[in-house]
């Protein structure tokens, strides 16, 4: 028995020793250590972010920044736990729609008095509005995404279809007509992966002014009006009436339909503009692709939901954290981050740098041309949105797109779900 007890004690000691050796040395005197939780994921962006942090640490010996990697698919869970547990990083990388809830719960610092004038002036007011929660700016916008048509130009040219330009973008009617024309010989005009349909549908609804959430008598209500209905029925009709969207791809993710697009089974695909990086890395040699400007309904508006850098309310070094944010998001650095992810920089000066330094000039020009059309979508700043999206909207949209429920049933599910979650 003594032997057993001794063995046990040795084991516990071994655990404690092993783990204690893993604790990194934290601080030296007169050095402010900042932790920076970031979910950058694409290798190109990871490289850019590491380079930015390294260059900061070299030039600012008194303020050292340490990256805390966050899994891109668990950002909310990770941040929530660390906020509640009082162990949040000083600087937090997230997105506007997600920080709304954290701001309401008081986990994020008010950046308004901290943001340098130069940084404030770099980013358009329309983008700042998205991270402004009742005169409290909770995040500095970094970069944004749009949903664009990507086309196999060889197929389009063979069919005699001319590509749209920034000056003459396609309307939805033109896009629909091209998709129908290109649906021949068992091939489809469009492959559209709508496994996560909510963000796509809601963003594109702004093309017809559909805001989904409206303020009525001091309460945010959810309405499926003309703008929202037009978006929904257009997509649904393309799948089931026009038969120009491959129904087999609708339940897949955006990247899962790329093999069919590369194989010429469909002439076009609608994707987040960041998929351009996938096109470069994965498309077959000689594959002639292009990304078109955003489609036009009544307008080309799309929702601005930028990635953001925020400062935790628990941070003891808010001023230093803002110094780093201002450095990380100067035009040159923002351009480097955006180029890696193929996302649109929040600052037009950074956008100019990206466009002038890329091989894919045409597609980048089309991407950047979307900046004036970024509009604040009401849902982005609403606290209950994240839960409604996950629990109500996504399953309901999936059912509608699979033709399992009609528009009336979808509407009642969405509205009832919102009312129940909003309380």
């Amino acid at each position, binding site marked *: 028995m003594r032997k057993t007890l001794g*063995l*046990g004690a040795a*084991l*516990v000691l*071994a*655990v404690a020793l*092993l*783990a*204690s050796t*893993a*604790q*990194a040395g934290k601080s030296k005197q007169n050095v402010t250590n900042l*932790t920076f*939780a970031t979910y*950058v*994921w*694409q*290798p190109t962006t*990871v*490289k850019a*972010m*590491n380079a930015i942090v390294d260059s900061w640490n070299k030039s600012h010996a008194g303020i050292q920044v340490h*990256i*805390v*990697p966050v*899994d*891109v*698919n*668990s950002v909310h*869970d*990770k941040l929530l*736990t*660390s906020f*509640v*547990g009082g*162990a949040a*990083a000083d600087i937090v990388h997230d997105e506007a729609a997600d920080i709304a809830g954290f701001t309401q719960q008081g986990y994020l610092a008010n950046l308004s008095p901290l943001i340098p004038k130069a940084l404030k002036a770099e980013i358009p007011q329309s983008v700042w509005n998205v991270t402004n929660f009742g005169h409290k700016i909770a995040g500095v916008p970094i970069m944004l995404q749009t949903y664009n048509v990507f086309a196999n130009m060889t197929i389009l040219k063979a069919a005699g279809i001319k590509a749209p330009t920034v000056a003459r973008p396609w309307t939805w009617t033109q896009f629909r007509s091209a998709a129908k024309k290109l649906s021949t010989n068992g091939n489809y005009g469009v492959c559209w*992966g709508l*496994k*996560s349909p909510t963000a796509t549908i809601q963003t594109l609804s702004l093309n017809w002014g559909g805001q989904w959430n409206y303020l009525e008598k001091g309460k945010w209500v959810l309405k499926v009006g003309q703008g929202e209905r037009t978006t929904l029925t257009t997509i649904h009709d393309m799948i089931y009436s026009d038969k120009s969207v491959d129904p087999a791809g609708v339940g*897949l*993710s*955006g*990247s*899962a339909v*790329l*093999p*069919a697009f*590369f*194989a010429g*089974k469909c002439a076009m695909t609608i994707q*987040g503009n*960041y*998929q351009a990086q*996938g096109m470069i*890395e*994965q*498309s*077959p*040699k000689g594959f002639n692709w292009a990304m078109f400007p955003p489609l036009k309904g009544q307008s080309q508006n799309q929702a601005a939901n930028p990635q953001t850098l925020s400062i935790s309310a628990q941070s003891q070094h808010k001023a230093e954290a803002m110094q780093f944010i201002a450095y990380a998001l100067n035009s040159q650095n923002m351009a480097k981050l955006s180029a890696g992810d193929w996302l649109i920089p929040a600052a037009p000066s950074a956008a100019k740098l990206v466009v002038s330094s890329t091989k894919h000039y045409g597609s980048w020009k089309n991407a950047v041309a979307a900046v004036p059309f970024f509009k604040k979508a009401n849902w982005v700043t609403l606290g209950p949105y994240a839960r409604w999206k996950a629990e109500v909207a996504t399953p309901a949209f999936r059912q509608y797109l699979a033709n399992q429920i009609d528009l009336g049933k979808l509407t009642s599910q969405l509205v009832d779900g919102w009312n129940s979650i909003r309380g």
Partner: protein
Amino acid sequence: MIVSSRPKRARTFQYTALLLYMLFLAFPLLWLLSVSFKGPRELVELHPHLIPREVTLSNYTDALHGDIGIGDVTLLHAAWNSTKVAILTSLLTTFVGLPAAYVLARTRGLLSRLGLGWILLSQMFPLILIIIPIFLLLRTLHLTDSHTGLIFVYVVWTLPFILWMLQSYVRGIPRDLEEAAMVDGASRITVLRTVIAPLLAPGIVVTALFAFITAWNEFFLALVLLQTPSLTTLPLLLARFVGVEGIVRLGPLAASALLATLPSLLLFTIIQRWLTRGLLSGAVKG
């Protein structure tokens, strides 16, 4: 003498069925192997082939040396972290669980019944429900962002199931064997050491292996509790290859996943003879 061809045919059929079943079981691993040797363009072909047309080792280079965005952490570093955590979890869980399981199996009374009921009840709480209380508790103990804290949580998390498994193994050993040894003059400790321990060995190995695999594969607790890049475990590292909205760096992920399965495969190979050894092999001696 006439020899029937029936048994031979039956044996051929059995082996064919076994071979097909083995292929069925091994297919995901074969596919993983195939993907790990394909380039990015071949990975998005509409009609993929099992055998890569252009074999590339770049996925393995990426997996072993590529920048995954976790500081200087490499696959081998994360594998060492996982090994350390899994082995210590396995040892501690078995060490704590073994005596408790013996008492639960051999005593009859209210306390034993309540103990078993509590074990079952504890398995009903979903992890997401208790993650924040666990985090707060570990923070009070200054054990967040450390392997010590992670191991303690893994031990607590796996212990109920380990206890349940072990006590069922103990119950499987006839009480008569202990009584016979005692009639021959053996003390309780001698009985435990010379009769129970050898008979329980396969059960101990199985439960220790279960604890090891649980800790080796666990993702969510490690995700929430660990922050310092150098503490990253394998599942956290593998998750870095999966991006937003279904974008996956499939090649490096397959190469990393394949390398990550090697220690488990090796462990199973070594321990296999323990697993297959008869539970009551000692009872028929003499």
